[in-house]
């Protein structure tokens, strides 16, 4: 290939590349972010309605306008237990700014009698929800415990943290992000 032929080839490649950028531009904003419900960053957090350990009913969509941490946990899960104190500490630091924690116990795969003693022993002050049917876990496509979903005031998942225990610094950076 001569120099001229090579340069023409390069120019054609670049023009085709530019044309592809123009053709594949997403003018309708077809990116699914923020439009449908899915347990993934950028999507609307799937709604759920569960009872707390004190018998109240909590619905996620009723908390729209507040920053929410949905934490999926079980008493038999070591990392879940280990991060509870940190979550409680930051919850008390940020709750006045509109931060809410919903700690959803995976009751359908946990010992229901162990939940309240654990919460009392740890002195946890945020609401503990009970997923007795596994419906909520299914909606959040639970694959590992703990799983934490940081949800912004607009109801969109800002960050998903799988595994733990979460460090306080991690909690603070993520909470400050969803409080914006």
């Amino acid at each position, binding site marked *: 290939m001569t120099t001229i032929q*090579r*340069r023409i080839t*390069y120019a054609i*490649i*670049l023009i085709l*590349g*530019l044309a*592809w*950028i123009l*053709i*594949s*531009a*997403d*003018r*309708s*904003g*077809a*990116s*699914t*972010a923020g439009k*449908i*419900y*899915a*347990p*993934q*960053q*950028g*999507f609307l957090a799937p709604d759920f309605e569960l009872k707390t350990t004190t018998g109240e009913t909590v619905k996620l969509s009723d908390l729209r306008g507040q920053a929410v941490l949905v934490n999926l946990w079980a008493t038999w899960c070591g990392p879940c237990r280990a991060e509870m104190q940190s979550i409680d500490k930051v919850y008390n630091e940020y709750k006045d700014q509109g931060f809410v924690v919903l700690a959803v116990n995976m009751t359908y795969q946990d010992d229901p009698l162990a939940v309240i003693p654990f919460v009392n022993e740890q002195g946890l002050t945020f609401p503990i929800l009970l997923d007795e049917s596994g419906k909520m876990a299914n909606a959040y496509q639970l*694959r*590992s415990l703990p799983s934490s979903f940081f949800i912004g005031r607009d109801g969109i998942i800002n960050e998903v*943290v*799988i*595994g733990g225990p*979460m*460090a*306080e*610094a*991690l909690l*603070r*950076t993520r909470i*400050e992000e969803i409080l914006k």
Partner: protein
Amino acid sequence: MIEIFRSLFAPPRHLILLVAAIWLGLALAEKRTERHGISKEQLNNISFYSLFGYILGGRVLFAMTNISAFTQSPLNLFSINIDLFDPIGGLVIAVLVGWIYGQRQKLPFWGTLDSLTPFFATLAIGLSLSHLAVGTAFGGPTDLPWGIELWNATRHPSQIYELIASLFVFALIWFHKSDSPPGILFLTFTALTTGSSLFLEAFRGDSTLVFGGFRVAQIIAWVMLIITLLVSESMRQQRES
């Protein structure tokens, strides 16, 4: 099949794929490094220092940009949480550390990049597998028969497109003729990788958009492609003159 793979490597187990890709990539790079004028020891050293720079730099830069969170719990600087990390900052530090090591050891610039190319190509395969496991870098909605169910929609299997492209690039790199001038292997890898991401980004459902719908990743890939072709042409002219 995809569901089994996703369950097997659900986060945080997806990291196994990345670690395996790093290990395999370095082993493959080591196998051929001497043909590029870099000894196995030099290759291992530059890789080790750069990886160390990536891990340390990523954490330190994350802490610096979120200083208030760390002043209240300074010991978290040593936390095992991988989310306390700035991947872009880590990459910058890794490149810087590798460059400083190369300068101090007087390593040939293009020879070093050529010897690391099998590592980069293998890492790209590991990254696409990791995306598939986690469900990130997902595709836009489609009604094509090969669409996959992900995040409550039938989507382009963009991670599989990415995997096929990275396997294809790896094969081309691995079977690239061994007597090519310094830098050509790396530039071929860069051109193929930027070209494939420019093409495949169009099928993504999570693109960052600018100026009324243009995909940022495509613009970056196109600019990278221009740079690669310009450098390649300039090296060719230097050789001919």
